[in-house]
């Protein structure tokens, strides 16, 4: 590039500077701070030095649209808002994003946010982030309730204001006593969805659409209670339910391995990781292993989540404990049994949270408390 044009814009990294450099007619910009010497070649965008500094309150115009009165949903679909967000707020070049659970939650999970955790409670679920969210005392979260321990722990900690609920239960171990107490006694509001519906809602957002038609949910109270509209398809006359796009403010996915930029591989079933990663405004990836970028590049077809979707990479070995991560460790049945015994009562749940969440500063301390030998013994 020989000529640099300077545009009056806010820097997408630090949201602080007044000037940035247009690299290619409006698609990519570089932060102009200290970069305006004549003849300096700007082939790649470098991260702004202020990237890690406490950000000024971000520009209002790109915040999630507040729930509009006519929307019956916990998170209102906003495809244009997501486009603008992706243009203005995403890092579009591969840059290291490694940080701790503490920093990732502090920066990307706010009170009142709509948050989603993939997959569910005892399978490849980012529980190290769930515990950190509780530790930092987040409140009034709206939650994607396709879960188990993740949903239960957050409800028990008083962090949840409302749920989009598909399934919260322990399968062969029965109902969730935490959910029962919250709904039956405390009136926690829950909207009903099917698993497929939640995945398709995320897929709609991932496709950049306001809704996705489906032939599921029709005729049921599950549909009526969620407030979904139906219509006849104009081409075939087939009835469809119009599932509203769901774009979480922050999503968290646990993967087997990724590189420092966030390029992620998942072994085994994908759950709804591809959809939620593309639908979310902010994405935290927690990983069992950090690999060299060359490893990712040697098999690019295995990348399920490319770097530009990712805002934070958190190195979290055994991050899904006491659940399992396919190929690396099994579910810790002993811990799960103790947990299930504890959550049978409200007091027991509090004691569990005190012992395993509030009583520990971070995931490293959690692993030490579980015991490294015991963790190693969970290898499949």
């Amino acid at each position, binding site marked *: 590039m020989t000529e640099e044009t300077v545009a009056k814009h806010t820097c997408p990294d630090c949201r602080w500077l007044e000037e940035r450099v247009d690299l290619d007619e409006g698609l990519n910009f570089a932060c102009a701070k200290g970069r305006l010497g004549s003849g300096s070649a700007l082939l790649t965008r470098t991260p702004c030095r202020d990237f890690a500094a406490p950000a000024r309150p971000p520009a209002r115009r790109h915040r999630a649209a507040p729930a509009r009165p006519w929307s019956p949903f916990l998170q209102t679909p906003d495809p244009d808002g997501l486009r603008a967000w992706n243009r203005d707020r995403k890092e579009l070049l591969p840059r290291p994003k490694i940080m701790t659970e503490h920093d990732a939650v502090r920066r990307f999970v706010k009170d009142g946010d709509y948050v989603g955790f993939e997959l569910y409670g005892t399978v490849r679920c980012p529980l190290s982030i769930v515990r950190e969210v509780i530790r930092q005392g987040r409140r009034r979260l709206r939650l994607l309730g396709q879960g188990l321990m993740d949903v239960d722990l957050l409800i028990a900690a008083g962090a949840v204001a409302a749920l989009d609920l598909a399934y919260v239960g322990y399968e*062969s171990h029965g109902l969730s006593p935490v959910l*029962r107490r919250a709904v039956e006694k405390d009136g926690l509001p829950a909207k009903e969805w099917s698993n497929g519906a939640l995945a*398709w809602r995320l897929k709609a957002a991932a496709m950049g659409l306001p809704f996705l038609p489906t032939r599921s949910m029709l005729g049921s109270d*599950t549909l009526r209670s969620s407030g979904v509209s139906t219509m006849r398809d104009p081409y075939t006359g087939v009835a469809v339910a119009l599932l509203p796009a769901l774009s979480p403010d922050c999503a968290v996915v646990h993967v087997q391995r990724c590189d420092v930029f966030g390029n992620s591989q998942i072994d085994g*079933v*994908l759950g709804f990781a591809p959809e939620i990663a593309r639908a979310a405004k902010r994405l935290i990836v927690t990983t069992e292993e950090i690999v060299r970028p060359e490893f990712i590049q040697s098999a690019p077809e295995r990348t399920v989540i490319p770097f530009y979707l990712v805002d934070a990479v958190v190195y979290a070995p055994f991050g899904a404990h006491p659940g399992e991560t396919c190929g690396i460790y099994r579910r810790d049945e002993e811990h799960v049994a103790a947990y299930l015994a504890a959550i049978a009562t409200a007091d027991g749940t509090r004691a569990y949270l005190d012992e395993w969440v509030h009583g520990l500063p971070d995931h490293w301390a959690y692993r030490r408390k579980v015991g490294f030998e015991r963790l190693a013994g969970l290898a499949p």
Partner: protein
Amino acid sequence: MSAQAEELLVAAAARLMTGRSTVFIGTGLPMLAAALAKRTCAPELVCVFEFGGIGPALERLPRAVGESRSFERAWAAEGLAGVMETAQRGLIMDGFLGGAQVDPYGNLNTTVIGPHDAPRARLPGAGGANDVGSLVWRTVIMMRHERRRFVEKVDFVTTPGYLDGPGARERAGLCPGTGPYRLLTDLALFDFPAETRRARLIALQPGATLEGVRAETGFAFEAVPEPETLPPPTPEELAVLRAAAGMEAAA
């Protein structure tokens, strides 16, 4: 439910999988039935699990629909949306579901007991059951037979059966040609004839009587004249089943 009743139910469900191709397997009893069927009457059965497992060997019984065993030695491991879209395209023939409440039209409730805004009991929710009941060609409902579970009207239609009678599924816009195929319990086997779409008793489990079934059912139902009795589980089936269940307990 006693172990014996559970074995009756699971063994009969496994036989319903004979000659089937792709079956959608829900959590709990359907998993046991699928494991038994794979080892006995339907070794080629392609079991589909909602979080993405397609055609696992089921040598070890999954304890959850997303755990590693649900795609151990499977043909494919994809994702939730992909599996449900496969069902929406009509490629999944049967779905095996459980439930907390069922009514004569095969509508299932797994959401709440009591009103939704102030429930007496909060149940897990729809999970994948609503998608299965909406999209697969034939739904087989597996339940323990108790009067409080067999009600005239479910508190919440989590998963649509025939709703309120013939034509109701079509009016609601559900895919034509889909719906509950059998209702199997530890006491009896029901079908849903096209004229009424109400559960009709077609067979009894060993040891059950028509009067006994009526006493345990909270709605009126018809029965075919002289319903046959389902064959009891063979010693071989019981051995396989107990080995599979015992393996789960030991794991």
